[in-house]
């Protein structure tokens, strides 16, 4: 049958029709303050596709096919899947050990938002398991798909993969509830890389990987533009504070600290407000620091596609800059997956870091740095400057379900909250099942932040918006503090979509910037 079809349409023609992107205007859910499990609605989000990357130069640079789906795609698909199963033993384990207990089914924000059964983590993983059982187990190989509840590779299967592996934000909430610890994010990452290998490459994500590798940051800001933006902020700070020596140093050799942060922090709102906070903290601490035009990006989209080489290339810029500038320590700004790559992967890729100060042998998070100063009384704080806000904190998925912060396994929850409480009088947590290790994704993680994904972004933000509206109602909360650039971009867009003010989302260091009193330096 498949052969007959190809006489008129090539596999690429067939797939392109199936994964065609169409603009859909999403409707936000009604806010009740409660997160209810929806009725199952088959194919509810099947029409919501990501845009494919079509720029041939970028595709060639990244080493992916440049003309859409390749003619021998089945062969390449299975070869790549075999490679993934062998290279990442976790992925093979996750194929084998699921007992279909159903604990994950109602844990995914995108399932809760859409009701589409393919967004249940078990069903999403099952898309790969069906192929696995058919082609990688001996009964499947011998007797075909029926016996093993498998599936033969077709263009329709590809379209399902393309649709639903791009409706997973790799937030890993489901893995917290899985009795076997199956990490659907790893399955999604592997699936995306398999799709890439046959020529189905996502535009938003890969354009960014390309820019991060060739220009140095996700925004594609050339060094002159980075310098111009940072100098603007420096001038603004000096003017506003009337302090001449507050600076944002760039490429300064011999500084103690290399500070890396997402490029969004010197471009977008509300991200930029945190940059003012970082600069004020470094100034008041009296520690020499520098940013780098080479390491002008903290984020690392290589993580999202399970392509270790892409991830390594992006991360290498940070460690090259650290060596060239001869810094003693590396500190990362407010960025979710940057922290995960920096703290969990850097050492494997480029460690050990003998060139760093032995007192700081691993990268630090800016919240850890600031909290330490607060605890030592080294910062003068006027908490009343934040009395206009009642603050709550959205734990970013990549940080919350990453390894640690400050060397403590729960530091990623306590340290940012410690900073907020150190600079604000009023702090309230959202319901327990929506924070810390159980936090809900903002709805746009892992390459789903493009305008093409607006329907899934709006639906996936529902659990977080419900939790926020609940504490707004009970405690008058009016500020959602964040430590991730993606969360900032997504939630400053989702708040108005759900009827709140855009300004209610912002960075933890935006609050620090407001409360810190500069000048007196005794106690440092």
């Amino acid at each position, binding site marked *: 049958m498949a052969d007959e079809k190809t006489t008129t349409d090539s596999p690429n023609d067939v797939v392109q029709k199936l994964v065609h*992107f169409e*603009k859909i205007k999403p409707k936000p859910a009604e806010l009740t303050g409660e997160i209810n499990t929806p009725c199952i609605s088959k194919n509810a989000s099947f029409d919501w596709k990501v*845009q494919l990357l079509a720029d041939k130069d970028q595709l060639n640079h990244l080493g992916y096919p440049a003309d859409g789906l390749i003619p021998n795609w089945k062969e390449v698909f299975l070869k790549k899947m075999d490679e993934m199963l062998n290279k990442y033993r976790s992925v093979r384990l996750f194929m084998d050990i699921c007992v279909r207990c159903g604990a994950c089914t109602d844990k995914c924000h995108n399932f809760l938002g859409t009701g589409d059964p393919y967004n249940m983590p078990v069903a999403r993983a099952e898309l790969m398991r069906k192929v696995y059982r058919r082609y990688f187990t001996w009964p499947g190989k011998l007797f075909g798909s029926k016996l093993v509840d498998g599936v033969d590779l077709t263009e329709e299967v590809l379209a399902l993969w393309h649709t639903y592996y791009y409706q997973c934000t790799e937030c890993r909430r489901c893995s917290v509830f899985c009795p076997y610890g199956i990490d659907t994010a790893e399955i999604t990452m592997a699936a995306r890389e398999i799709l890439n290998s046959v020529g189905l490459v996502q535009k*938003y994500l890969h*354009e*960014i990987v390309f*820019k991060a590798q060739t220009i140095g*940051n*996700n*925004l*594609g*800001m*050339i060094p*002159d*533009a980075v310098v*111009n*933006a940072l100098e*603007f*902020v420096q001038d*603004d700070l000096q003017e506003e504070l009337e302090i001449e020596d507050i600076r944002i140093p760039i490429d300064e050799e011999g500084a103690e600290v290399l500070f890396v942060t*997402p*490029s*969004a922090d*010197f*471009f*977008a*709102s509300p*991200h*930029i407000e945190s940059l003012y906070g970082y600069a004020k903290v470094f100034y008041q601490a009296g520690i020499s620091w520098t940013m780098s035009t080479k390491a002008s990006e903290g*984020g690392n989209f290589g993580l999202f596609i399970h392509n270790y080489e892409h991830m390594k290339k992006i991360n290498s810029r940070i460690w090259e800059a650290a060596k060239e500038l001869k810094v003693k320590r590396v500190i990362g700004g407010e*960025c979710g997956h940057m922290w995960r790559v920096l703290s969990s992967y850097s050492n494997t890729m480029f460690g050990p870091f003998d060139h760093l100060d032995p007192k700081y042998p691993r990268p630090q998070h800016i919240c850890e740095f600031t909290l330490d100063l607060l605890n030592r009384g080294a910062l003068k704080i006027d908490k009343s400057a934040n009395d206009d806000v009642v603050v709550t904190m959205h734990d970013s998925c990549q940080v919350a379900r990453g390894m640690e912060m400050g060397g403590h396994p729960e530091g990623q929850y306590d340290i940012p909250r410690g900073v907020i409480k150190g600079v604000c009088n009023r702090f309230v947590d959202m319901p327990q099942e929506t924070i810390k290790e159980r936090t809900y994704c903002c709805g746009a993680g892992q390459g789903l*932040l493009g*305008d*093409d994904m607006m329907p899934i972004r709006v639906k996936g933000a529902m659990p977080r918006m419900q939790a926020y509206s609940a504490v707004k109602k009970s405690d008058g909360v009016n500020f959602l503090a964040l430590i*991730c*650039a*993606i969360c*900032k*971009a997504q939630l400053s867009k989702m708040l108005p979509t759900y009827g709140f003010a855009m300004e209610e989302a912002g960075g933890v260091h935006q609050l620090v910037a407001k409360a810190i009193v500069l000048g007196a330096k005794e106690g440092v």
Partner: protein
Amino acid sequence: MPTLEFDGKQVDLDEDGYLTNLDDWSEGVASTLAEQDGLNLEDSHWEVIRFLRDYYQQYQIAPMIKILVKEIKKKMGADKGNTKYLYQLFPDGPAKQACRYAGLPKPTGCV
């Protein structure tokens, strides 16, 4: 692929309505794009568009909004140097809507 009919020619746009080829830009193209959104470009809009284009030529990226606000404040007065004013001019947001009329590509990254 969507297109824009202007001056008897077809101008290619991407799925979000941004120019595919930045050299296709002209004031007429900008006005036509705005007209499609029911917006009539006036001097104040052009002030923003011209600054965006000048900045882009030098830095290959749009300026951050704070830079734009400061420039508008300098050119058009303190009462207009704020984000609210820019949103009045470009209701979908200066970063997206104004850049689209100015023929700049859409920014990528966590923005």
